[in-house]
């Protein structure tokens, strides 16, 4: 298991392995690699806990029922896998402010939290708006030559680049 203890792998190995993994998600599970719908389901489940089952009547949750499905387990798996990978390579460490951020904006946790939270809200809205995220559109959709995914990826990347350039 020497290779699990390595800090990082070649991006080509990682990318190719993701490609192979996507064959198996299609073949064995009739699914494509994607994550973001799970957040919509989880958000609805939390809201249901607070406001009761009326939440299930919302048009969006009738379309996207509040159930634990394949993708929900997949997202839980990502957490476990990343933890294992970091743990086995001794790169597990608690950090609130990433290095690049610290160099430009200082190490105030509150500022990082506020911007990250705003970014999270935008991402939660954007991924449902475009009906997919980086994995669902930029990997899975792009490799299926889906028109929606190629449109989303071009605009996603352009907007990301512009905002990043404005910030740094």
């Amino acid at each position, binding site marked *: 298991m020497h290779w699990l203890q390595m800090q990082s*792998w070649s*991006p*080509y190995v*990682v*990318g190719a392995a*993701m*490609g192979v993994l*996507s*064959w*198996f998600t*299609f*073949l064995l*599970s*009739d*699914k494509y690699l994607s994550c*973001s719908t*799970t*957040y*919509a389901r989880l*958000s609805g489940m939390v809201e249901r806990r607070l406001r009761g089952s009326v939440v299930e009547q*919302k*048009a969006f949750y009738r379309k996207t029922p509040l159930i634990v499905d394949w993708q*929900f387990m*997949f997202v*839980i*798996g*990502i*957490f476990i*896998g*990343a933890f294992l*990978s*970091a743990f086995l390579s001794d790169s597990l460490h608690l950090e609130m402010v990433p290095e690049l*951020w610290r160099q430009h904006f200082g190490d105030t946790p509150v500022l990082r*939290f*506020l*911007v990250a*939270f705003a*970014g999270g*809200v935008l*991402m*939660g*809205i*954007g991924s*449902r*708006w475009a009906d997919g995220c980086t994995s669902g559109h930029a*990997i899975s959709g792009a490799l299926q*030559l*889906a*028109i*929606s*995914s190629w*449109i989303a*990826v071009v*605009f996603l990347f352009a*907007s990301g*680049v512009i*905002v*990043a*350039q404005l910030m*740094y």
Partner: protein
Amino acid sequence: MLDRLHQHRRLQLLLGLLMGVLFGILLQKGGLTHYDVVLGQLLFRDWTVVKIMLSAIIVGAIGIFLLRSFGHVRLQPKPASVGGSAIGGIIFGAGLATLGYCPGTVTGAMGQGSYDALTGGFFGILVGAGLFAHCYPWLDKHILNKGRIQAQTLPELWGVSPWTLVLPMILVMGLLLWLIERFGG
């Protein structure tokens, strides 16, 4: 197609978890769970993200279209529209640049100990998704379906066989990777 396996709910939940673990390992080993790597790509200082994505698309596309030729898989493209795919992409991109994680890598980043991903990212995405669900009826009526494109895939749109697009796409992506390796660093 492996219909009986696909309909076995419990086994599918287990498969989802297992495949998620593998994907999580790959995300972490690839560096995609790091804010600095994602921002490095958007600032064109670090090409890791593009290298991983392009190799995933190349390898993935070859396998998926081969499997499809033999009738083992079905494609699942999502419907396209300017109001949905383009505007959604713009909002998502702004989120990606400010958060530095995506919905997949945010849980991976939590797993490696980055708690800006938990406190900001995870809860932020939940709030955003909830807001969207709340506004969905209005958005669906007025924006999401604007500029609807009937065809779902590029081969369908241009009336060509998938391979006439897949092969040139792989060549172009391969060339891009070579250029990045040569000049991008």
